[in-house]
């Protein structure tokens, strides 16, 4: 059977039925027939089957893929798999991409609708997977026997694959941005000839760069933004969803978060989950957002950043007027055994028919989420929250010293600052809803104490959208009358050069003539 594009195969371990007595504590387990029917109805273009002994016999994976006629596979397991790698290896044997397989631990999940939601979210995630490129996979050997030939290694699976970040050069802003270079906790991204380049050996697959990039130019198999967007959007359709972001390297021995009411989203590193994600989840209908990091073992050192983000979201919610914000977003301690709190959603339940699509790394979507929460909570519009963890920034410009040269706009990676040159002169405008507080504009500004940027969430600025910060008429060419440059900029040049010897003639040419007429004059 040849695979159909966009089709997803779902295999569910038959032991989830509960008769096996597996850690289901007297419950009757899931009714898999109902689950199967629900899934087939809720998820389009899907093949669902119940597979006996799936958890203990991963070698059934290729058969499931072939019966489903799918290149994307979701497996619902009753136990946490001892080795993820076995399933991956068998999926590869079926000719699937190593990251085209999603494993969902349904251990202890007693409600059919929750199991269905988790599997549907995994199916959405699998469908959003665009496939791996050769440079985005890093091969690793699990065990090595020296006398084995390479041919044997090739057909047998002591090989596993890890995703590494890859940069799509077409959408990358290059030297104009460079945010990924400074964001990488391992220093594995370097600017070479004005283009960021990932050192595959140094990349530790944390995915922090993926959420830092303002143009979504970073590809990361298995942890790409479209995958998370599809997965989270699907999970948010559950009533009072308690979303749970857990580090892939997190403590694996505790109870499965899904068993105690959380809807888990696995991330390669919690450092990837920005405050923007949390705000968008809350505005999208989540009742609570929980975060579980791998704690002391974290190699990327994200714990402090995660704490700051949680504090920031709590402070923002408090200022917006939410009651008990500490229960809305929390760092979950290592042992996930306490039931997830599930108060009514802050932003109300999204209509199941109009599923929101998310754009997680887009500051505009975060700004929209903040405004939505503010509206729901009836917050006053004069709120400014300054915090290093704010996903949004706030630019202040001193009109008196700004010369409208446009250097800030040229340095802005998101287009929050814009310089528009028209017949009237130059307009410097700013949209706080697009501003990520990267500070590139402040560094680019040639004037002292003129432009500053703070990491701050300002409701008034977000509400007013694009505003004009500076309007400067153009000085006109005395020969042809066309605009030369912003008048204030030329004044500044004049002030800087006036004491130089022979500056009079130079200034006259520079400030009173347009480039074309300068050449004519010279002839």
């Amino acid at each position, binding site marked *: 059977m040849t695979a159909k594009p966009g089709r997803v195969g779902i295999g569910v371990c038959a032991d989830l039925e509960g008769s096996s007595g597996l850690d289901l504590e007297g419950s009757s387990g899931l009714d898999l027939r109902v689950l199967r029917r629900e899934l087939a109805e809720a998820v389009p273009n899907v093949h669902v089957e119940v597979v006996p002994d799936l958890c203990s016999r991963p070698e059934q994976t290729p058969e499931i893929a072939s019966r489903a006629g799918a290149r994307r596979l979701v497996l619902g397991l009753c136990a946490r798999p001892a080795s993820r790698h076995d399933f991956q290896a068998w999926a590869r044997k079926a000719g699937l991409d190593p990251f085209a397989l999603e494993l969902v631990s349904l251990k202890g999940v007693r409600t059919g609708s929750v199991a269905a939601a988790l599997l549907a979210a995994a199916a959405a995630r699998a469908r959003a997977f665009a496939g791996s490129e*050769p440079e985005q996979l890093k091969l690793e050997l699990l065990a090595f026997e020296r*006398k084995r030939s390479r041919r044997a290694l090739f057909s047998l699976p002591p*090989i596993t694959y890890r995703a590494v970040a890859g940069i799509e050069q077409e959408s990358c802003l290059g030297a104009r941005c460079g945010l990924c270079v400074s964001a990488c906790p391992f220093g594995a991204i370097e600017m070479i000839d004005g283009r960021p380049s990932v050192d595959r050996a140094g990349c530790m697959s944390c995915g922090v760069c993926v959420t830092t990039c303002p143009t979504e130019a970073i590809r990361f198999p298995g942890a790409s933004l479209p995958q998370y967007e599809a997965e989270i959007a699907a999970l948010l359709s559950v009533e009072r969803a308690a979303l749970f972001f857990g580090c892939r390297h997190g403590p694996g021995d505790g109870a499965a978060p899904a068993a105690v009411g959380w809807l888990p989203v696995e991330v390669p590193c919690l450092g990837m989950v920005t405050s923007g994600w949390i705000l968008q989840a809350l505005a999208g209908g989540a009742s609570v957002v929980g975060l579980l990091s791998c704690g002391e073992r974290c190699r990327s050192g994200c714990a402090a950043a995660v704490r700051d983000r949680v504090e920031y979201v709590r402070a923002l919610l408090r200022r917006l007027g939410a009651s008990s914000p500490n229960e809305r977003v929390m760092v979950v301690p290592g042992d996930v055994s306490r039931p997830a709190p599930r108060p009514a959603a802050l932003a109300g339940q999204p209509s199941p028919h109009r599923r929101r699509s998310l754009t997680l790394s887009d500051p505009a979507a975060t700004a929209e989420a903040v405004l939505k929460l503010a509206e729901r909570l009836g917050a006053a519009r004069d709120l400014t929250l300054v915090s290093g963890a704010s996903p949004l920034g706030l630019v202040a410009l001193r009109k008196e010293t700004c010369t409208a040269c446009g250097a800030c706009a040229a340095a802005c990676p998101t287009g929050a600052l814009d310089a528009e040159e028209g017949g009237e002169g130059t307009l410097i405008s700013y949209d706080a809803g697009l501003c990520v507080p990267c500070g590139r504009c402040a560094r680019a500004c040639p004037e002292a104490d003129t432009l500053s940027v703070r990491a701050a969430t300002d409701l008034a600025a977000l509400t007013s959208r694009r505003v004009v910060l500076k309007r400067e008429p153009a000085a006109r060419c005395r020969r042809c009358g066309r605009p030369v440059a912003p008048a204030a900029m030329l004044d500044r040049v004049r002030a800087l050069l006036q004491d130089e010897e022979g500056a009079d003639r130079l200034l006259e040419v520079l400030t009173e003539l347009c480039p074309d007429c300068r050449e004519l004059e010279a002839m």
Partner: protein
Amino acid sequence: MRAFPFFPRWRSLLDSLETLTDEARARLEEEYVDLFLLGELHSACPLYESAYLDRTGRSRGVIAAGVEQAYAAAGVAVSPAAQGELPDHVAFELEFLSLLCAEEARAWRAGLPDEASDRMGRERDFLERHLLRFLPGLVRAVKLVSTSSSFYRRLAEAVHAFVVHDRDLIGALAEAYASAPKAASEA
């Protein structure tokens, strides 16, 4: 082969090979000429290493000679039957690597891990110094000028995936080999 993570690329290549009609075969020849032959080193997608590493064209001979030296160090040379084809043609480079792999496999079978390891080192050197320095450029060039259903585009992508994977595999094996305790290997 099926455990190879980029098997889908090979499958699509094999599929298109299997369904090739005579008419399509004739078109393939035309496309080959258009893509790779017209203009030789200045064609849309030249098949020579030197065309990518030296855009000025001044040191192309030096690059080709470097490749020839690598062949000579392994005791092989471009056959006279190739009628003067340059040694840095991608087909020769790939064939050279397959030759090294065959030698490596023989060494493993004969129970000579050190010799096999030596061959792996040569493969790695050649991949890093030659093939992988220009293959990505060649693949980009093919992708730029061909449609997504083009046979040559599929071929280029499949070969690229295989070569990148091979480099990674050799790297991981060499690392493991270097760190494996001697005693274990002799046991």
